């Protein structure tokens, strides 16, 4: 039990998937211009990452028992694409409020590397099912924290600061990310993964 909680905390703070493993950068940079969109995307990621990890775990066990683990990439990516498609249809039909809140972000998530990375990491680290759930949920929450922080800083900067013309836009975003990432490295040693 303690280990499960430790993995959860580590994956939010000192092993933050966005700021220490540098994953999910494309949407992180593209959708972080204001806090409202960042929140929508972040919530959608939490939802999809947790569900796909839960689905991929038994599938990986099946691959392992039949000795075809080389195929895991192909199988995982198809599972993810199918899950996202299914979720979209399901939400549209049964929970339209949730669909309106983050429906537009769902298709983008298929190419968000966080989703695939979480599935690959639990394979590499040989987690049990409970640990996988805790790790995937924690990583997604960590990504949510990162995108909201970044969006808040960018929103403020867009109003007040005078950025050199060559750095404006993407360039300065990397510098902000670098400083955020330094701050998160400050949590090193808090919990291990």
């Amino acid at each position, binding site marked *: 039990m303690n280990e499960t909680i430790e993995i959860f905390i580590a994956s939010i703070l000192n092993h933050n998937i966005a700021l*220490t493993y540098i994953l999910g950068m*494309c949407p992180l940079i593209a959708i972080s211009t204001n806090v409202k969109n960042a929140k929508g995307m972040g919530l959608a990621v939490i939802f999809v990452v947790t569900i796909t990890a839960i689905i991929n775990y038994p599938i990986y066990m099946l691959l392992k028992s039949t000795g075809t683990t*080389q195929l895991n990439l*192909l199988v995982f990516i198809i599972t993810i694409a199918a899950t996202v498609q299914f979720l979209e249809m399901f939400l549209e039909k049964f929970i339209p409020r949730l669909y309106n809140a983050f429906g537009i972000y769902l298709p983008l998530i298929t190419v968000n590397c966080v989703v*695939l990375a979480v599935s690959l990491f639990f394979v590499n680290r040989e987690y049990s099912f409970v640990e996988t759930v805790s790790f995937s949920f924690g990583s997604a929450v960590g990504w949510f924290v990162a995108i909201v922080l970044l969006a808040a800083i960018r929103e403020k900067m867009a109003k007040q600061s005078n950025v050199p013309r060559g750095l404006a836009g993407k360039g300065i975003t990397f510098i902000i990310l670098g400083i955020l990432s*330094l701050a998160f*490295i400050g949590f090193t040693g808090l919990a291990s993964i």
Partner: protein
Amino acid sequence: MKRKIFYTKPYNIFKQGLAADNPIAIAVLGICSALAVTNKVENAIAMGLGVTFVIIASSLTVSAIRKFIPAKVRMVTYMVIISTYVIVVQMFLEAYFPAIASQLGAYVGLIITNCIVMGRSEAFAIKNPVKYSIVDGLANGLGYTYVLIAVSVVRELLAFGTILNIQVVGDNWVNWVSMAMAPGGFFVLGLFIWLIRELTKNFEVTA
């Protein structure tokens, strides 16, 4: 004969991929792997070549069967094609370069979700004949590789005092540890983008 090569279509496609539409510096795609593996030059080279191979092979395949792919399921089709080639790269690295394969770890598998590969299939290969798609794939792959190598040279030098594992600085050198970790990648790439934009006078207008 030599002058004929300029201003032909393949030449223009090539030039665009390398400079004007450079996938990393201008379009800012495929950043995850670009930052995560660039703390050592050898990793950057392996990753760059792997991605180049996957882009060329998947562009070729998508372009060859482009008339048979229904528009609605094209994304899934790209994914299946791309992941097949990524598995090839992964197994090749594991068989011949096990040390590099273990350092790159999960990032080889993540070539699948590298937006550059998907982006070239969607933006170019699906609409163009095979021969141009190959040139486009090669140009984008090389454009990606050279930025990766440039970033990794700076990071490996600052973080370990070496280039390609060969010691290049004196004994008084103190390793700059954070350059090997994530922040170093962010800072170096940010400054690199600044440099390229100043050199090409291609500025981004912020809204």
